[in-house]
Structures are given as structure tokens and as C-alpha cells.
């Protein structure tokens, strides 16, 4: 049976991005998949990737920039080693996401959209992770942590600092 772990998916490399670029350049509506491919390869969308795409697909770079800034998934800055996403969905909100956020901020010394000085953690917020029944939740890289309390945050961060 096929194993069901997203982490098993291979990390994309820059070569993969360039291959995608060549394969998909003539496809209808390929801009967003190409940007996703660039982000998977570089960890963010560097300026040069915008120019590569623009040249090969034939879309003006300004228009590409417009698409990047429209969608919250795309980032123009590199991320830290571990990405912490705090869920700000309704269920999390009423179950104390704010206190969890405060605990995370205290622990890491950064605010949302920032990266720690050592480049270890980036803190982001998401509208909803869809795990409402175990709220409040955070997702570190691709693992979801639920039913959080402020005391658990310290431990979880410490665990990740080791890796």
C-alpha cells in the first residue's frame, strides 16, 4: 500500500524547477503551478525566478508580481529552517489562539511574518488549518499540534531546536 506521508515527497531542487519551466511553459494557466514549483525549489520566490518565468512563458514580470502578491502562499523572502504556522480560525480563536500566539512570541522573540536571528524559526499565521476539533492548533513544518496549552509551547519549541 502507498505510504501516506507528505514528508516522503522528495524535496524539489532548482533543476526540477527549470525542468518544470521548460515542460509547462506552453500549458494553459501554468503561471501559478510554476510559481509553486519555484517556491518549492528555492524556499521562496527569488527575483531571478520571476524573470525566468517571464521570459519563457511570455508574461510581463509586473503581472507575475501582481499574482505573487495576491496569493498569501507566495513569499518573496526566504524562510527559516522550521516554519511555525499558527491557526487563527474561528474555533482556535474562541479556544484561546491569542494566548498561544503570545506564548510563541515570548518564546521566540519574534512577531508574525518574522524569522528568528539564528534563522531557525519563521512564524506565520494561517486563516484555518481545518483541524478545528483539536483547537487551538499550530503546524510546524508539516506536523500539526493540537489541544495546545501555553505550557506545551515551550516544550515543542525546545524539541525543534534540537533538530
Amino acid at each position, binding site marked *: *500500500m*502507498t505510504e*501516506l*506521508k*507528505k514528508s516522503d*515527497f522528495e524535496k524539489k531542487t532548482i533543476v526540477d524547477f527549470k525542468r518544470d519551466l521548460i515542460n509547462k511553459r506552453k500549458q*494553459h*494557466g*501554468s*503561471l*501559478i*503551478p510554476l*510559481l*509553486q514549483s519555484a517556491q518549492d525549489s528555492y524556499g521562496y520566490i527569488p527575483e531571478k525566478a520571476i524573470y525566468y518565468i517571464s521570459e519563457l512563458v511570455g508574461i510581463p514580470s509586473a503581472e507575475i508580481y*501582481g*499574482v505573487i502578491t*495576491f*496569493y*498569501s*502562499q*507566495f513569499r518573496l523572502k526566504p524562510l527559516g529552517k522550521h516554519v511555525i504556522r499558527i491557526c*487563527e*480560525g*474561528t*474555533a482556535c*480563536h*474562541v*479556544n484561546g489562539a491569542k*494566548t498561544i500566539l*503570545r506564548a510563541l512570541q*515570548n518564546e521566540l522573540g519574534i512577531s508574525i511574518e518574522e524569522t528568528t536571528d539564528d534563522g531557525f524559526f519563521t512564524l506565520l499565521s*494561517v*486563516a*484555518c*488549518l*481545518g*483541524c*478545528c*476539533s*483539536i*483547537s487551538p*492548533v499550530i503546524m510546524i513544518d*508539516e*506536523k*500539526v*499540534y*493540537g489541544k495546545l496549552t*501555553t505550557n506545551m509551547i515551550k516544550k515543542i519549541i525546545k524539541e525543534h531546536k534540537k533538530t
Partner: protein
Amino acid sequence: MKEIKVGLATCGIAAGGMLVYDELKKEIKNNNIEVELKKTGCMGMCYREVLVEVKDDSDSYLYANVTPDKVKRIITEHIINNKPVKEWIIKSKSINKEDAFFKKQKQIVLRNCGIIDPSSVDDYILNNGYKAIQKCLNEYSKMEVIDIIIKSGLRGRGGGGFPTGLKWKFANQAAGDKKYIICNADEGDPGAFMDRSTIEGDPHSIIEGMMIAGYAIQADEAYIYVRAEYPLAIERLSIAIKQCEERGFLGKNIFNSNMDFKIRIKEGAGAFVCGEETALISSIEGKRGVPRIRPPFPANKGLWGKPTNINNVETYANIAWIIMNGPEAFSSMGTEKSKGTKVFALAGKIVRSGLTEVPMGITINEIIYDIGGGIKDGKKFKAVQMGGPSGGCIPASMSDLKIDYDEITKTGAIMGSGGLIVLDETTCMVDLAKFFLNFTQNESCGKCTFCRIGTKRMLEILERITAGAGKEGDIQLLEELSYKIKNSSLCGLGQTAPNPVLTTIKYFRDEYEAHIKEKRCPAHSCVSLLTYTIIEDKCIGCTLCAQKCPVNAISGKTKEPHKIKQDACIKCGLCYDSCKFDAIEKI
């Protein structure tokens, strides 16, 4: 042979399901027993994860709250010695246990969730999978299929509630040689997870529903637009599509008919507005997800300008069941104008949160008390929030309301996609309205002025009210802005964005007034309006709060009552959370 199934949807995995699975695998190997170990989707009872089901020839036993250290006992007592561990079982016929959570449910959409292995096409086929599409191809004409769906009374489950059969009819009648099918799986409402669970638990039922729609409108290409925040759902769909291609269920001449059908997955890139159909189409086309004016409707001019039928995940998941069981079986459930069942994602301040599928016409009370087990921590039930940022709050006093598209619309909320968040006395309604406005304001695409600027102005007013700086006339101003935004926005996002504010003003006006006039938050939730004080009689001077306080606002000697310096206090609540003697009061 016995079968063991572990619920491994996102919630199950987050609760440690993989650890339980690995432990089971290890124990089975160590004891060298013959038993089939399977992974399955969401069983709905998220509050009792990890769930493990043991099945033998005559019955099934559902174990709840399983941890890796419970595995050994389950294996030795139940699997080897045939003695079920009764105290851990919550559902089983032979030991006469049924959890109240399941009693009032009727599962159509979730018929296979938690039963089959979502990554096995054979499992789906064994449970009547891909029979409905073959029945359509062999027995029904395209119009007959559409008629069945019209007769069933199925309405769009994405929130709008437009009759599905009619939508198909328009797309069928639209002129054009190339047509498309789209599945909207961009479940962006905060507080909703029905579509994620359905995809994770039973991806093939969605694919089959799309095939039937494709047959009915003569489309040969389809897209599933899924949120990128749902990695597991995307993965299970990709596996399912690949299996179908290998079997010849997708591709050229499917099931040896002369129908061609292929499905592609498009990952969303994080924009709530893309749940709106025309915005979703622009996004698939690779553009900014901005809605456009309708008409022309997608049925006539959709993806790449071609006729397109677009439905939500839950709608497609109903289709195969309707074809197999007939439209009457479906329309016999529900109310006059809302037929069938609806899946709700039950969350918030409720004892048993999870996924529940109930017949339309059930009351809110039944969902909250009979299925959900009431309010957490013995608190008082205040309201339910339905429909996410486009919906509204229905107060406890109206909770004998029947769930039905039109009845809910009358209250000012909407059915929405099915998020049902339960609120108790500690939830501040003004803060909740602010929360949703903050969301819609962020997600407004910016095309319509009223939605772009109006929601920003409304948010500012709500921020000022919750910060204790509300002014006389703010409520009227909010109402005025609300109506203007509703009337001057192009798409559903703007037209419904003020709903959370309007419904909370309608049913909880006194809370707004308390914030504005008395500078008081009745639910003790708005931070700026709170004061923390130490009750001298209860404080034993353990100094814990003083140590926790990040701004050194608490002073006092050991073993003597402490004091909070109000002008230094930043109201972070750390002292309140840390006090073991309930000696800190929040007013």
C-alpha cells in the same frame, strides 16, 4: 480474519495516529498473528482520536482514545484471545454499546469515510464504487441523469444552495464543443473541515460524482481546485486519480464507453475569494483570483471562456449515492425545500467536536446536545456561528430552529458550507464580529470599492469599540456601512461580509452597548477592558504570579498577599493562568 482499522485523517495523525499504527504493526509482527491492518479516513469523532476499529465476521468494535501503550492489551485480549476490552470500546452491537454521537446521524456523503482505505480503489469498488457511473453510461441518457438529480432536490452544498440538477441542465444546454467540470475544494472558511475530511476519507466518491456530471453535460476535462493547506487531501486525491487512470476509469473511452474524461488537480495558493466560482476560474487560468460580473454564468462562459459546471466537494460526493438509490430515497429526507443530509463540522466550546452528517430539518438543539453532548466545562450556551465569515450568529434562544437553507437565511446567517462553531458565555460577540471582519477585510480582493474600503472602516470601528474607545453612534454607523457594502459588492464575499456584524448587532445589541457606554466587556474577553486584581483572602503569597509577570507589575513578600500595579499591567493574563489558588480575579 479480523481487520484492524486506524483513523488517519489530519486530526487522527495530529492526535498521534501514526504512533498507534506503528505500534499495532509491531505487535502484530511480534505475535505473528494473521490480521489485516488498514489505514482509513475520518470517522467523525475527532474529540476521541485516536480511533481504532476492530472488525471480525460478525461485528465491529470501536476503540476510542487509543494510545500506543494501550495497543498491547488490545492485541493480546481482543485479537488473540477474542475478549474485547470492553471499557475502552465506545461502539459495538454485541456488547450493546452505541455512542450518542452516531445516533441521529445519517451518512450519505460520509458513507465510506472511516470504513474504506482511502488509498485503495479496490476498497471503494467493493463498497459499490464506480457502479453509478457505469449505470449512467449503460442505462441513462444525459437528460435522464439530469432529471434524476433535479428530482432528488439536491442543492449546492458549497453554501449558495442553488439546485444542482438545474445547474447541470444549463451547462448541458450551453452551446459549445468543449466543456469543463470543476470541483471546488477550496474550503477557505475558518472553522470548516467537512471537505477536507471527505477527500481524505473517500476521494473516489468525488471523482465518481465528477464523472457523472461530466457525462451529463458532455465534458471531457475536469479540475479539482484544492487548498494548498491540505497536503494530505491533495496526496490522497493524486493517488486516487492515478489508480483510476491505471484501471481505465479515467482517460480515453472510460469503462469501454465512448466517453473521454480526465481530471487534473490545481493547488490553490491561499486566497479565500477563490472559493467564489468566477474567481476560482481566474485562478485556474493562472491569474489573480478576482471575481467577474455574472451573467454570463460559468455554465455558459466559464473556464477559458467555455461552458463549465462547478460544484463543491460535498455536492459531488452525494451524486453516486443518488444514482444508486434513486432520487426518491434522497428526497424523502429533509424538509420541503432542503432535501437529503448535510455534513457539519462541529467545533468550538462543545464536548464532542467532530464531523457529523445529519438529515436536513434537524434542530440546532439536537445537534448541540444530542450529538455534540452539550457545552464544554458546564458553561452556558450562548450562540452558534454558522456559515463562517459570510454567515452569522444564531442565539441560544432560537436553537429549536430547523436546519434548512431558507430557515437559516431568515435569521441573517447562512447555511454556508457547514462550519458550526458553538459559543459559550465566555465568547465576546463584538470580538467575534471583529475577528470575522478582520478576516474578510484581509481577503477582499480589492475590486469593489465598498468591500475594499468599507470593510476596513468597519474593522476600525470594531477595533475602537473593543479597545474601550467606542463612540455614541458607532452601532448605527456599522449598520449603515453594512447595507452599503452588501448592496455595492460584486461577489458573495462582499455581499455577505457584514453578516457577522449585522447578526451580532441584531441579537446581542446589549453587548455592543456595554462596550461603548459602560466600557465593559460582559464576556470578560476584550483585553483592554479587563482589570486583573488579586483577592487578598485567597492569595497565600506563593510568588508564582510575580515570577511569571513579564513586566514586573506584581509585588509582595513571600507568604503575604501580593498586589498588581494597575498602571504597569499589560493584561497578558499570565498571572491569571498560573495562579493555583484562583486568587486572581478578572473583571
